[in-house]
C-alpha cells in the first residue's frame, strides 16, 4: 500500500515529520477561527452599545480574580428553558468588548448574563458578604474582604488605554479621567459625577453601591459590574427574533 509506503519514508525524517504535524494540525483552526474575524454576520451591529465604566471594569477584574467564571456562565443558550429562566439568549455583540470573554463552562451557580438590575445593591452586598444570609442553602463562598478592601484606581487609565489599543472605543477623555470617574460613580455627592454621565451616558448607575459613599471598596466595583450585566446594549430587546422570549 503506497500510503503506508510514503509514511515509511516520512517517519525517517524528523523535520519532515514535524512540518507535516504542524501543517495537518493547523487546518482545523484556519477553517474555523479565521473566518470569524471576516464574516460580518458573526457579530450583530449595535451602534449605541456603551463600554464598561472604569469602576465596572475594575469590578470585572475582581470577578476574574475570584474565579467567579468557574461556577457562573454568562451565556444564555438558544434553548427554551435557558431563555425562560434567564432571559433573551445572549447575542455575540453583547460581549464584543469583553477581553477576555467570560461565557464560562459550568453552572454550579446560575447564569449571570442578564443579572443586572434583577436584585438590589443591598441584596448583592449581603449576598457577597455571606451568601447564606439571603439564600440559606447556597454553596457559594463568602467574600468578606470585598467590603474591607479599598478599590485601587491608579492603574485604571492604563487599563483603558490598553483596551483602546485593542479596539474598544474608549476616548482619550475617558482614559484621562479613569481614576476620578471610578471614585465618582460610587459617590453621588462627588462633584465629578457629571463627568461620568457625560462620558458614559446619562443611564449610567451612579450611587453608593455598598451603601458607603465615603469609601471606594472592591464591593462597590463588583456590584457596579454585576448591575450592568446584560445592560450595555438593548440589542437583545430590539431583536426581531425575540417575540415570545420570556423574562426572568
Amino acid at each position, binding site marked *: 500500500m503506497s500510503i503506508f509506503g510514503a*509514511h*515509511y519514508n516520512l517517519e*525517517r525524517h*524528523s*523535520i519532515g*515529520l514535524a512540518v507535516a*504535524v*504542524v501543517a*495537518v*494540525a493547523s*487546518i*482545523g*483552526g484556519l*477553517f*474555523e*477561527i479565521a473566518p*470569524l*474575524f471576516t464574516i460580518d454576520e*458573526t457579530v450583530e451591529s449595535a451602534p449605541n452599545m456603551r463600554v464598561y465604566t472604569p469602576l465596572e471594569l475594575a469590578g470585572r477584574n475582581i470577578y*476574574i*480574580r475570584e*474565579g467567579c*467564571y468557574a*461556577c457562573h*456562565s454568562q*451565556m444564555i*443558550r*438558544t*434553548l427554551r*428553558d*435557558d431563555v425562560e429562566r434567564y432571559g433573551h*439568549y445572549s447575542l455575540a455583540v*453583547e*460581549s*464584543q*468588548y*469583553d*477581553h*477576555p*470573554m467570560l*461565557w*464560562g463552562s*459550568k453552572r454550579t*451557580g*446560575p447564569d449571570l448574563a442578564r443579572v443586572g438590575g434583577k436584585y438590589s445593591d443591598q441584596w448583592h452586598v449581603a449576598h457577597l458578604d455571606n451568601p447564606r444570609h439571603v*439564600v440559606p*442553602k*447556597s*454553596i*457559594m*463562598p*463568602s467574600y468578606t474582604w470585598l467590603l474591607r478592601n479599598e478599590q485601587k484606581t*491608579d*492603574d485604571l487609565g*492604563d*487599563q483603558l488605554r*490598553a*483596551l483602546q*489599543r*485593542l479596539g474598544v472605543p474608549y476616548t482619550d477623555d475617558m482614559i484621562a479621567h479613569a481614576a476620578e470617574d471610578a471614585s465618582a460613580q460610587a459617590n453621588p455627592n462627588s462633584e465629578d459625577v457629571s463627568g461620568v454621565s457625560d462620558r458614559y451616558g446619562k443611564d449610567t448607575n451612579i450611587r453608593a453601591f455598598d451603601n458607603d459613599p465615603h469609601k471606594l471598596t472592591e464591593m462597590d466595583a463588583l456590584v457596579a459590574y454585576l448591575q450592568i450585566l446584560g445592560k450595555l446594549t438593548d440589542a437583545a430587546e430590539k431583536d426581531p427574533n425575540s417575540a415570545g422570549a420570556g423574562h426572568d
Partner: protein
Amino acid sequence: MVSTLTKNERHFAFIISVAVAICGLVMAAAGRNDLLGTHGFVVFFFALGVTFILARGYYDPEPGAERFAAYYDEPIKVGVILAMSWAVFAMFVGDWVAWLLAYPTLTFDEPWASFGRLRPIHTTGIIFGFGGNALIATSFHVMQRTSRARMPDQLSPWFVLIGYNLFCVLAVTGYPLGITQSKEYAEPEWYADIWLVIVWVTYLALYLRTLARRQEPHIYVANWYFLAFILVVAVLHIVNNLALPISLSSAKSFPIFSGVQDAMTQWWYGHNAVAFFLTAGFLGMMYYYLPTRAQRPIFSYRLSIISFWGITFLYMWAGSHHLHYTALPQWVQTLGMSFSLMLLVPSWASAGNALLTLNGAWHRVRDDATLRFMMVAAVFYGVSTFEGSFLAIRPVNSLSHYTDWTIGHVHAGALGWVALITFGAIYSLVPILWKRERIYSPALVEVHFWLALAGTLIYVFAMWNSGIVQGLMWRTYTASGTLAYSFMDSVVAMHPYYIARAIGGLLFFVGTVVGFYNIWMTIRTPINVARELATDRPVTEHAGAPAAEPAE
C-alpha cells in the same frame, strides 16, 4: 546532579540562573506597586535556590568520557519525583475543593482559600504539574531508548525541567494572590506565558537534536506523539495567550481577542490541550511502556499510523462543541460536532491497538498491577473518548452542558486515562532508572491500583448522576407549562453526589500517597548491579561501550 554536568555546562547554568535571578529583581522593582512585584520575588528566590545548588557542586570532579556509554537519566529521576510531588499536592487541593462544594464553610476567611482561587491550583497542578512533569520525564526516557542515542548535552534537559517547574510555580502562586487571565487551563499571565515559550522551544530543540543522533533509521511511534505534543501545544499556547499587558510594571493584561472570537480561540485551545497535552503526550507514553512491560510488540503498525494522523487532523476541529447553542455561528458548531464524531475512529483505533497488543500477555495483566494500570487506562481512554463524541452531539450537549456531567467526563479521562497510564509508566520506569531489581512492594502497587480504580468509579458515577439530574431539573416543566424547579432546588439536589465525589477523590488521593511512598522506598533500597541491562545503553563509537543488541 551538578556532578554530571561538564565544567562548561556548569558555567552556562550559573550564568542562566543569575540572569533569571536578575530578571526576578527587575520584576520586583518595576512591579513594586503591583502583584508583579510579588512574582518578581518568587522568580528571584527560585533562581537563587538553583544557583545555590549549582554553587555547592561547582567544584565537583567533571564526568569522564565513560558517560557517553550510558543514557543521561539524572533529569528523568528528578522529573519523576516532581511529577509525584505535584500529584500529591494538586490532588489534595482537588479533594479540598470537592468538599467545599458539599460544605462551603470548610475553609478560612481568607481570599487565597476561596473556591474560585483554589480550583485553578488544582487544575494547573494536575495538568501541568503532574501531567507535564510526567510527560517531560518519560519523553526524555523514551526518546533516548527508541533512538538508542544519548541526549546531545546535559544542560538543556535541566533547563527544560527546572524552567518548566518555574512556570508551574508562577501559575499556582499567582491564583491565590489573584493573578489570572481567567482563560481555563491557560490562566497564567503574560510574563509566565513568555517564559514557557522559551522553555518549550528548548524542549523542541532538545527533542529534535536527540532524534538527529538516533541510531535507528525509523522514528518510533511514541516519538511521533511526543513530537506532536510539543509542536501543537506550542502553537496553541502562543495563539491563545496573545495579550497586551496594561504596562510592563503590571501583571495584568488583556487578551487581544474579545467576545465570540475569544471564545472560539479559547475552546480551540482548551479542547486541544486535552488532545495534545492530555492525549497525544500520554499516547506516546502508552506506545512505549505498555508493549515493553507486556513484552509484546505493538499489535498493528498501520493502525498506529491511521490513528496518529487521524488524531492530529481531526481534534483541531472539535473545540467548537464546547459552544453549542451559544452566540457562536451555527456553522462552526456543526463542524465541531461532526469532527468530534469522526474523532471516535482514531481514538478507538488507538485504544484497540493497545488492548490487542496485550493478546498473549493477559496472564501478565492478571499478575502485574503495573501492567494492569496501563490496561485499565486504555479501557478508560476508549470509554471517555466515546463519551466525548457522544456529549459533542448537539441535543445531548443541550442536557449535559454546564452540568457536572462534563466534570465526570473530564475525570474519567484525567483519573482513568491520564493518571493511570502515568502510574503504570512510572512504576515501570522507577526500577530501571534507579537500577533496582523491582519496585519496593508489589503488594502496595496492588493497593494503589484498587484505590485508584475504586476512586475513579465512585467519582465518575457520582458526577454522571448529579449531571443528569441537574440537566433534567433545569428543563422540567409543570403541567401548566412553567419551569418546575428553581435553580436552588437543583443545587440542593446535588449535595449527596458532591459528598460521594469527594469520597471518590479521597480514595484516589490516598492511592497516590501510597504510590509515592512505594516509589520513595524503592529508591532507598540498595542498588542491584545485575539490573544494569547490557542492552540499556546508547549505541556509540566512544571507547568502553559494548555494541548494543537490537532493542526489544
